[in-house]
């Protein structure tokens, strides 16, 4: 059989079907890759500056608790996390902001005004007014949030814990 210089009907159909199939596969296949990857690429920014209100609200010399809740959205689900911050104004404008989480097992510590310590109810860990461990199992001093004062408003920087 002599080979025709033109494409045979069979060849034409084979190529057309192959091309159409490849286009259809690409139309579904390429978006499908994006579909699988997109939540991973869109990571939520967890660090943010949280305003704790006017600095004037916090008395000097006495740690004061500020609580707030932040909600994180993961796809179709929301998780509300509550935070507690002890604001301690050592002087007029020297401010430390402690997380009220014990560094041992993350129980909530409370400020005991009469004994001048933070007390952890779980294993009797004690921290002094500067967050230093006084007694008990906590391995580290209380965590301090970075803070700033702008226009008399105190803010802390929340980091990914």
């Amino acid at each position, binding site marked *: 059989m002599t080979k025709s210089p033109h494409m045979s009907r069979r060849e034409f159909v084979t190529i057309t079907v192959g091309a159409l199939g490849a286009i259809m596969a690409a139309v*579904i296949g390429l*978006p*499908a890759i*994006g*579909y*699988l*990857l*997109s*939540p991973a690429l869109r990571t939520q920014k967890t660090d943010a500056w949280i305003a704790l209100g006017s600095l004037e609200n916090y008395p000097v010399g006495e740690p004061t608790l500020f609580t707030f809740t932040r909600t994180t959205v993961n*796809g*179709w*689900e929301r998780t509300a996390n509550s935070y507690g911050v002890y604001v301690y104004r050592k002087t007029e404008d020297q401010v430390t902001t402690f997380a009220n989480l014990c560094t041992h097992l993350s129980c909530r510590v409370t400020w005991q005004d009469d004994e001048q310590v933070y007390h952890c109810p779980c294993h009797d860990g004690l921290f002094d007014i500067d967050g230093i461990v006084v007694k008990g199992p906590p391995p580290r001093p209380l965590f301090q949030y970075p803070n700033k004062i702008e226009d008399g408003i105190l803010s802390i920087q929340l980091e990914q814990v």
Partner: protein
Amino acid sequence: MTSKVMNWLDERLGLTGIYDSVLDRNIPKVNWWFTLGSASLFLVGLQGITGIFLTVYYVPSPDHAYDSIQYIMNGVAYGWLIRGIHHWGATLMVIVVFIHMLRTFYCAAYKYPRELTWVTGVVLLLATLGMGFTGYLLPMNQKAYWATTVGTEIPGTIPIIGPFLTQVLRGGVGISAVTLARFFSLHIWFLPALIALTIGIHMYLIIRLGISYIPTKED
């Protein structure tokens, strides 16, 4: 090089034999109505692939089903496309399968020796409708809820065993989390398994018996 590899594989796998019997079959002179079986097969594949992708984010629980679909539609890249294809593909599937059945019926293609091809085809038609019915509940919106309420009440009109059937379908007295979970399970495991098996038999019969010619006036 390519032909060398193909020859090596062919010698061991018998690919040419499979190709000849599956794709290079002799078929009578037919028209476009005879492509609906292949169209159904293509749609089944498309529904299977898009359905698998949807399970990546869908959650079959009443408190998350709706939100997870909102997330697919608005939160994930091309989620609208994957779900859109699955949604419209489902409708198209029912139409194509039904017209495929009509063509077989009007061409009398169900007669000897193809009775079993017809019977497996009926199983596939019912399974397709079952997929449509179970899939309809999964978005867990108002339409889904009430459609399933009505749909599961229909067998309830059967004398004596009716109310029992309704409860079995619902997994309880009303539409609940149990209903959603079992519809999901039917939709992604039981019915697809049945469909895959039945398609296998259906296709085997078509390859073995071939398709019938268009009846003439003498027939």
